């Protein structure tokens, strides 16, 4: 039994043209038993930086709170909101602090920076960063997400098309994963607008 797979759940983030999207499923399980289907794993760090923390559910909550603390202190000390690139390094160093007793989560980050450029990143549970230019995936359905995203994603998708692409990627991937699914949430972040949508999904 792997701790990373105890509670299940998956996240994916994608780059579009002047926009990014990040999505997660809603399952919380205890191994094969589904406990809840309202367990969101994507949170807002700032108005235009979002991050997903799939993995061990208690660590999702703990790390989310820890990051909120650090983002707030950053905002007060630096008197500006944190950039997605900086936030990625903040998450990475927060995880590496626990190098030998890690938080069992694999974060995914998506945001739009001050120059209105899209940015995504992902990392492993000890904070090894991956700045991808196309898409990043994480969670128990990560292999399926890779397969879907690799065949559906294309460069310079407009916000609406990016929404469709990430939604299809997530839904079809989690439908083949027993530990993920049971509903999904998609965030599309544009330079002056953030949209959150709940997807109608298979509930089995």
């Amino acid at each position, binding site marked *: 039994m792997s701790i990373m797979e105890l509670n299940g759940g998956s996240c994916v983030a994608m780059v579009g043209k002047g926009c990014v999207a990040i999505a997660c499923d809603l399952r919380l399980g205890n191994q094969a038993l589904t406990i809840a289907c309202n367990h969101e794993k994507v949170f807002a760090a700032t108005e235009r930086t979002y991050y997903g923390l799939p993995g061990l559910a208690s660590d999702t909550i703990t790390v989310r*709170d820890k990051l*909120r*603390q650090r983002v*707030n*202190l950053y905002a*007060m*000390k630096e*008197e500006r909101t944190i950039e997605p690139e900086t936030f990625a390094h903040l998450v990475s160093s927060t995880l590496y602090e626990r190098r030998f007793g890690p938080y069992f989560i694999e974060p995914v980050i998506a945001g739009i920076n001050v120059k209105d450029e899209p940015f995504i990143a992902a990392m492993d549970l000890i904070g090894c960063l991956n700045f991808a230019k196309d898409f990043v995936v994480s969670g128990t359905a990560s292999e399926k997400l890779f397969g879907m995203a690799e065949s559906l994603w294309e460069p310079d998708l407009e916000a609406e098309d990016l929404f469709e692409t990430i939604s299809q990627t997530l839904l079809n991937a989690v439908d083949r994963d027993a530990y993920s699914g049971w509903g999904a949430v998609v965030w599309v972040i544009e330079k002056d607008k953030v949209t959150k949508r709940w997807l109608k999904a298979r509930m089995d």
Partner: protein
Amino acid sequence: MSRRYDSRTTIFSPEGRLYQVEYALESISHAGTVVGILAPGPSATPFVSAPEVSDAMAVDSEGAAASSSTPAAGSSTPAQSAAAKKKEEEAKAEREKKYPGPQRAGIVLAAEKKVTSKLLEKEKGSSEKLFLVNGNVISGVAGYNADANSLVSYARNAAQSHLSTYNEDMPVEQLVQKVCDLKQGYTQFGGLRPFGVSFLFAGHDPHHAFQLYASDPSGNYSGWKATCIGANNSTAQSLLRQDYRDDIGLDESLGLALKVLSKTMDSTTLDSEKLELSTLTIDEAGRPVAHIFKPAEIDALLEKEGLKKAPEETSA
């Protein structure tokens, strides 16, 4: 021979004084003035100034509580009362003309910046005397800036770890108490000097709504409706006592804070170079919103209040 007791923060003098703490207080009385005014908004209970009570504005003071139960007009003669009433009504009409619309509730903190040299670069950040301590708390400092920075940082960390533990903003008084506990420690445990800083904390929480606290280097703190720390604080205090009303609105409080500072500051000019200003209000959802004014906003407000004194062209 007070010198025997001077160097030790933790030793009482035979007169029962802690000299280092008093010296710290003295140093603060030379620092830039910081004014805090709590505008409770229209729903507040009436406040009546009672000149015989020296600190009538202290929220906790029993004197203030007792005096507020007796309307001021009730103790004076009918003739006086009629005249006073007319005068009061005129003043009210004037106020409403100057500050129209519904009165917002909130707290104002205004600070005087002491400019020591014209060669000195301004701080890169938005402010050097007013700080955001948490989403629901702003603070103004008077005293040693270096000490203040360390305490503000301490307060911010305390507030954030509370948020992270309980998923709730730290209650204002709890935060003030936490900072004051630290300050107090330095007046008791050996070998160190106390923090040379007084604070005003303006905060909002679901338990007691808007709150204004002042704290000094000894670790004492008290809640206020309007108060002031730093240089000329007795002058400022009496100005506040004169003009404070329990139904004062936020916009009027801003004007009052600027007026008080314009009278207590010995500088000939009054503009954003010399002033810092901030407010704490709540949004429609009841969440606290802190706002530290940008220089342009301060200048605009001074212009509106007719208090702007532009720096004169210095003759070479």
